[in-house]
Structures are given as C-alpha cells and as structure tokens.
C-alpha cells in the first residue's frame, strides 16, 4: 500500500510540473499573439493603399495589360503553404496540410503538374516525406517576421510565375478569425484576378507610362499579399498554440484532481487497515 501511495504522489508532482510549463507557454503565446496582432495592424495601411493604387492603375484604363493580370493555360501549379516551425500548436499544422494534400490529390495526377513552396519546417518535412516536390522553402522565421525576412522567397515565388515555371499560384494558410478560431484558407495569388476595390478609382497621370508602372507595382503587390498571409498565419499560430496550451493546462488540473482523490482514498484505506489490525491485535490479547 505504501508503495502505491508514493507512486500516486510522484504522478501528482510530475503532472503539476507539466502544468506549470504549459501554463507558462500559454502566457508566452498570449503575449506573442498580442504583438502579432499589432504587426498585422501596422501592415494594414500599406496593404489598403497598394490595393487602392493597383485597382486604380490596372482597372483605370482597359488597354493596360500585364502578364500577371492574364489567365493562361495551366501546365503547372504552385502551392505556397504556410506552417509553423515547431509543433505543440494543436491542429494548426495538420489542418492546413490535410487540406493541401486533399486538394492536390483531387486536382493533379502526376507530380509534374505542381510544386510546393513551403514556409515553415513542419510543412517542409511533411511534403518531403511524401515525395511531393518542394520548389522553394524557408524555415526558422522569427515569431514576429518583418518584410525583409521573407522578401527573398516572396520575390522568387513571384518570379517563378513571371518566368513561366508556374501558370498559377495558390496560398494555403490559417486565417486568424479570433483567439479561439482559425480557418484554413485557400487564396489565389497569381494571376491577379479580383482587383475590384470598393473605393473610388482615381484617374492618374503616369510617369513614365502605365505599362512600366504595372511592371513595378504588380510584383510589389503580389509580394505584399504573401507577407500579409504570413502575418495572418503567424497570429493564428500563436493563437492556436495558446489554446492548445490552455487545454493542456486544464487537462493537467483535472488529472491532478482525480489523482489527489485517489491518493486520499488510498491513504484513508491504509489508515483504516492499520486501525483494524491494531484492534484485532488488542482483541487477541484479551
């Protein structure tokens, strides 16, 4: 009986320690989520402005055309998939990866028809294990990425569309709805199709010409869309990790409660047994 009492005590202690760790991780994620939301907010003015200008320039006059605005026959599709580098974030990564995997199975027959651009180590490993071609990848991004961190991969991705490696590009990531809800989102990145803006279009003078401006503007716009998706995904990651750690802490508490209960029962049983033995011994002497 004594041994089992000690066992239960040990389990209570380890569970307590685990819950302290998960609690700390929950709070760390909460503060990271705060900053991620702040980053997303400071990105909004840039995004809104560039969207407005792109819409004005591209839709303003109908004779302007640019390869990035035109649909072409699809021979090869690119999928940009954003996952985290580390786990312990609940279903954050598996949700995205499952959706991408299913989409690919539905749309493509051979690995010639598509390639992955992986942001995040979990995604990279997932595709490598399944022998799915990965064209570009980046891992080890900081928790609060700046535009400079992903400039290179965004630039290369957009160039792969421009040079004809891909004929269309999709992004898959977790869209941040709230601290407790993140939705897997599929977004068509290129060619740029829905440029319509609800803001009033402005008629501009172009210096030097509309074509040359589109040449600069559209790649910059596409790269910003990638960065926007990354910020969104990062906020979701921190939120997902926070929720996962909160659940883990709650479970640990519940476990400690039941363990304490059985510990007390076992202790009481031991005491009762001792008393019975003493009484029996005393009776035997009479």
């Amino acid at each position, binding site marked *: 009986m004594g041994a089992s009492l000690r066992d239960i005590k040990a389990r209570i202690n380890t569970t307590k320690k685990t819950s302290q760790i998960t609690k700390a991780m929950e709070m760390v994620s909460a503060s990271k989520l705060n900053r991620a939301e702040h980053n997303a907010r400071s990105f909004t*003015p*840039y995004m809104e402005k560039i969207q407005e200008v792109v819409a004005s320039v591209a839709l303003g006059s109908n004779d302007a055309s640019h390869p990035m605005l035109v649909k072409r026959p699809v021979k090869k599709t690119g999928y940009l998939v954003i996952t985290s580098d580390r786990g312990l974030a609940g279903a954050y990564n598996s949700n995205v990866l499952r959706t991408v995997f299913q989409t690919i199975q539905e749309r493509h027959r051979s690995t010639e028809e598509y390639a992955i651009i992986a942001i995040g180590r979990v995604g990279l490993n997932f595709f490598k294990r399944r022998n799915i071609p990965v064209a570009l990848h980046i891992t080890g991004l900081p928790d609060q990425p700046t535009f400079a961190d992903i400039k290179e991969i965004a630039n290369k991705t957009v160039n792969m569309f421009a040079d004809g490696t891909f004929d269309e590009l999709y992004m898959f990531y977790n869209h941040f709805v709230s601290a407790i809800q993140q939705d897997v989102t599929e977004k068509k990145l290129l060619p740029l199709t829905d440029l319509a803006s609800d803001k009033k279009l402005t008629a501009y003078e172009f210096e030097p010409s509309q074509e040359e401006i589109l040449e*600069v*503007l559209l790649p910059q716009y596409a790269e910003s869309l990638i960065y926007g998706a990354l910020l969104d995904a990062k906020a979701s990651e921190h939120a997902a990790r926070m929720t996962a750690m909160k659940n883990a802490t709650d479970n640990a508490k519940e476990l400690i409660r039941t363990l304490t209960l059985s510990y007390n029962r076992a202790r009481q049983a031991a005491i009762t047994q001792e008393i019975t033995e003493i009484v029996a011994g005393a009776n035997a002497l009479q």
Partner: protein
Amino acid sequence: MKTIKVSVVTPDGPVYEADVEMVSAKAQSGELGVLPGHIPMVAPLEIGAVRLKKGNATELVAVSGGFLEVRPDRVTILAQAAERAEDIDVARAKAAKERAERRLQAKQDDIDHKRAELALRRAINRLNVANRNF
C-alpha cells in the same frame, strides 16, 4: 506657405507622416518634385532619398524603390523598405555594403550578381542618407 500631407508607408508600418511644403524624389524617369496642388500621378521610384522640405529644414528618408502616389491633398510613398535619416543603423549599413562588395567580387551567376548589386546600391543609399550626402 501651402503644405501637403505626406506619408511614407512600408509593410512593417508607417515610417513618416507630416505636412510639408515640397516632396522631391528620384523617380525612374528622373528627379521629381511635387508641390501642393499637383495633379494625381503615380511614378515608380529608384533606390534613393526622398527629400521633404518643411520651412527651412529638409528631412531625408531613404527608400529602396517602391512608388509615389500623388493626390490633390496628399502624397503617399509605398516602399518595401524605408528609413528616416536619424533611424539608419550606420554600422549595419556598412556591414551590408561590405558583404555586397564581397559577393560582387566572387564570380556568380547573373541573378545573384544582380541581387548583390541591388543590395550594394541600397547600402550605399542608406549611408548617403545617414550622412546627409545629398
């Protein structure tokens, strides 16, 4: 003196916001000056300095490309990276310059060469702006 609202915006947040008398920047087609009341215009920018004239003072902002949008009441500069002269980390810019120079000396394919060249131009631009070399 009439003024015009100017904002310099990057993906990492707004960098500069103020009312100024004149904005001048290096566009791809040449130097460009914008005064209040300019007609709406869009122009791509070179890697260079944006000068913002306010009274007797002129402030400098280093931009790495991007473009300039002019509206009757405001000017917006959208760049992937921009820093005010006083925010530039000179040591870092120097390090970036040396790195780019080393890379340029090593023989590489065209794309890397081009990228190193751009990095060098950005670094030199930052140093120039930090030293108010304009």
